[in-house]
Structure formats: C-alpha cells, structure tokens
C-alpha cells in the first residue's frame, strides 16, 4: 500500500475511510518503531494510537508538495515515544537497572539450545530492548532509523557527544552479550 497526497488530503478533510486506510498503513510501518520501546504489542499499539492522533492533527499544517509522509510520520512517532519515555523516565530507569543483568542471564539460558544458524537477528532485537533506555534509543535512531547524531541530539535534547557515547555503549553492551551467548552455545555444542 502506498500513501499518496490524495489520501492525505482526504484525511485533512476528516474523511474517516481515508483515515482508516492511513491507519492501516501506519500500523505496518510504525508498529515496529513502537515495539522497540515496549515490552508487548498492547503497549506498542497504545503508543501507536497516540502517535497516529498527532499525525492526523499535524497533517493540516504540512505542505503537500514535496512531502515525505514516511519520514515525517516516523519522526512524529519517535518524538511521541520519546515524550512518553520522558513522562515515565524514573520508572524506566529503575526497571532497567534492576533487570538488565538478570535479563542477560535469561537470554543466555533461553537460546543455549538453539542451533548456531538461528542465532542472530531475533536475539539482537531482544537484546536491544534490554539495553539501558538511552542507549537503546540512540542505537535504534542511529542504526535502524538512520538519523544522524545531530538529529538524535535534537530529538533527545542531549549533546551530540552524549549521543555518540550512548551509541558506543550500546554496541559495547550488545557485543558483550552476544559473545557471552555465543560462548555458551559453543560450550553446549562441545
């Protein structure tokens, strides 16, 4: 499915059919973004709905000529998720600190019986979720969404250097975790 200016124009006019079409599209394109910030699909969908509401409200202010809906909607969604995170920042911080080590062990145990060929992408995504929140945010925005450090710094309202530091921290933690899982798997095979 493709979002064209006609659908967007209809959404601006509060055409509910067109809005539903746009929602379906956003569900596929933005749900993965939301899911990165949440533990389950329900919470991710709740964030998606909040973000979609902002998208609909914001559409009337955009210039349709040379309008990149994908990039724009992703940006709105990321900002929404970041705002949500800020609102529950303390809770998330505690959550991360308490569980990060335990989660590492859990993943190490969970996948120890998997074949080496299956090792990789799925585990990486789950491990990203277990990163400290700031590191995970920067990693997702930089690696998966393709934002530059300058943009990430603006979005997260942190210095550019801090963004770079979070990225390197994220990679370092991921690398350590993956190596640990890998060594566990090797031991099992032997």
């Amino acid at each position, binding site marked *: 499915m493709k979002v064209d200016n006609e659908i967007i124009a209809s959404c601006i006019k509060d055409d509910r059919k067109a809005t539903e079409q746009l929602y379906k599209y956003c569900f596929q394109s933005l749900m993965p973004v939301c899911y990165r910030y949440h533990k389950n699909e329900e919470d991710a969908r709740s964030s998606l709905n*909040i973000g*979609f509401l902002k998208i609909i409200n914001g559409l009337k202010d955009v210039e349709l000529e040379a309008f990149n809906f994908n990039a724009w909607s992703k940006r709105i969604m990321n900002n929404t998720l970041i705002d949500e995170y800020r609102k529950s920042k303390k809770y998330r911080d505690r959550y991360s600190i308490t569980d990060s080590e335990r989660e590492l062990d859990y993943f190490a145990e969970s996948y120890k019986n998997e074949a080496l060929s299956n090792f990789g992408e799925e585990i990486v995504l789950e491990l990203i979720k277990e990163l400290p929140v700031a590191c995970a945010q920067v990693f997702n925005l930089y690696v998966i969404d393709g934002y530059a450090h300058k943009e990430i710094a603006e979005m997260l309202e942190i210095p550019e250097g801090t963004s770079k530091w979070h990225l390197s921290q994220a990679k370092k933690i991921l690398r350590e975790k*993956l190596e640990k899982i890998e060594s566990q798997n090797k031991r099992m095979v032997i």
Partner: protein
Amino acid sequence: MSWTDQELSEMAKKAEAGRAFTYDDSFWGEMEALLPAKKKSIWPYFWAIAVPIVGALTLYLAGPTKGVSTSHVAKTIPFEMNRFGNTNNLGLSLSSSQEKKVVGVDLDIQSQNFSPAISAYSAEKSAIKNPKILVSTETNFGRKQKSGNTRNLEITEQIVPVINASSSYKNDLTQFNREALPQDVNKSAESEIVERLSFAPLSLLGFNPYLKMLALPYYSRRRYFSAFGELGFGIGEAYRSDQIGHTESISLSAGVRITKNKLFVQAGFGFEAEKAGLELNEREKIYDYGVKTFENRLSYKQVYRLNMPINFGYQIAKHAIQIGATPSYLLSTKMKYAYLENENVKRNETIFGTKTGWNSFGLKLNLGYGFNLFPSTTLGLNIQIQAMKQLEISWTTSENKMPISGQVFIRKTLR
C-alpha cells in the same frame, strides 16, 4: 567471535525489516474512538432554512403580478405621446419622421387609436410590453441627444431630477403621488393628471419631462431587476477578548436586486480585506535536562475573504431597512511568523496564505439602513454580528464569541 559494528548494524536492520505485526480490524475501532468527533457542519441546516426562504421570496418578487397595474406606466406612454403630439401645448414638436420613430419603437399609435388618452389605462394588458422610446436627435428644447438613445421608462429613479427641477411642479407631483392611481383610475382622474402635466414648466424640466414623470415609482407595481456595486468600510471588535484593539475592513462587492412594490431582495458577491490584528501563540515547555521553551508566534496582519451577502429589505421613499446574512470564505492571510527557542528568535518572516488557527467559513448576520442620497446612490450603515466561530477552538479559549462590527457602505445602482 568478535562482532564488528557493521555486523551488529546489519543484523539489527535485518531483524527489524523481517518483523511483521498482524493487523486486526478491531484496532481501527479503538483508534477511531480516540479521534475527535467529526465536526457537524451547520451548512446543511443553514441552506435547508435559507434556500426555501430565498426561493419563496424570489418567487414572490419575481412572479407574475396581479391586478390591472401590470404595465401601468407603460400604458401611459402612448397616451401621453398622443396627447402631446396632437396638442403640442408642451412645446414639443416632432417632425413626421421623428414621430414615426417614436411610434415605431413601441407601437403603432395610429393603429392603436390612442385618442382619447384614457385608453392607456384600460385593462388591455397586452397593448404594450416593455415600452422603450427612441428619442429624436433634436427637439424644440434645443438639447441634443444621441441618436438611438434608449430610455426604459421602468427605471424609477428618473423621476428625481424632475422633482428637483421646479418647486411648483414638485407640488403637483406630490399631489399626483398621493392620489390613488393604479387600480381605479377613471377617465376624469386621468384627464386631471394630464391637465396638471400640461401646465408644468417644461423649460425647467429638461428633456422629455413627461416621459420622466411617467416613470414615477409609486405608480408602478412592476417588479424590476437592477444591478449594483457596493463599497464598504468597516470597523469591529477584536477576535480575541484578551487582546486590545479592533479590526478594520474594506470590501467591494457587486450584485443584483429584485424589487417589487416596496420589498426587495438583493444578493451579491464580493471581496473583503480585513486588518485583523490577531496574535496566536503556541508555547511548549519541556522540563528535562533544564527547562526549554519552544514558541510559535503567529501574528495575523490581514485576512482576505470572499463574501456572498444576501439581504431582504423594505423601502420607504428614500429610506430602506434590510436584514440578511453574509456567508464568507477565507481566501488567504498575511502573517508575521516567529519561532523562538528559549526566548531567542530562530525564525522571523512574513508568510502569505497560511490559515492556521482560522476556520475557512464564516457567517455574519446583519441589520442595515440605507438612505438614497441620489437616485441611484445609497449611503448606508450595517451592523453585523459574527454567527460562526472564526478561530479554531484548539488555538484560543479567549475568542470573542460573536464579535460585533459596523460597516458604512455606499451603493451605486446600475441599470
């Protein structure tokens, strides 16, 4: 095995791309519940009420008239022409060719046998329709008139110069007006009128005075259409109650007017430029890593609208009162936009065309008074009240709900 940065990135991207979520139709139901309720437009209701009213009034005003007065003024023409032509006591001398001209345009006077003159008032409605008289190039009055100049006797305003021409004649006319003519004109009454006309000081009346006089509006019950142009200057309350100031506007419109008896309906189409003086601010404060503020300042200088005024009125001599509505559509705006971060201006520019904060459609109700300064010129005053919200609710809670404005207008009636 040591994982490189590139391997980590590729693995994460690949995993992200391969992730899919199953959509369920019930999700949309949840989402729709979060969306703001669909705005109920008042336009269907407005049109449902307005169209029948306008239709009924238009039918009434434009429909066939009753009684003997349908072509009352028109029927007097041959009678007068015949009289003046024969008696020549008004000093009007037409050559035979000129007379033919006069006769030829409207009717054949000879064949209609308009002597005696009273035949013009008979119930023969079909005798003359839309009388027009071609004025000869030269007359005894010594004034030149362009050949082929056509005068439509139904134009009521033509009487005014006649009235102003002579006080004695004016008295005659006033008396003439007071007397009931249209329905029960009898032979003696008409003879009397003709007698009075015969004594009018024609040298003061200008060209073809008898024709002008015959166009007295008070004798005619015919409907007629006219076009008009209108220029208005307005001043009104500010859009926001918390902002000191007022709005100023200038408008130019054109339209048509249908008159029947003393009632009239007029509809027009025009352009309005308004000095709005409206400020809308949007501020966001973020308490994270220190306090940060972001602010959008929208300072509207001018707004441009299309207006479609519809008015109904009642004319009493030179005075008219009218009530109506003016639907409008916001065409464009002129705005000074500023974006500030932590009180520092990051962007400052003039923008045309943005409608942020405004509703596209508006509706003003108005009550007006008009005074005929000259036969075709009316000076008037409208008091208007905004019946539809002009600002979007999301932008301000201090909107003046129904700002009042006043407008002085000058209207020129065209043929």
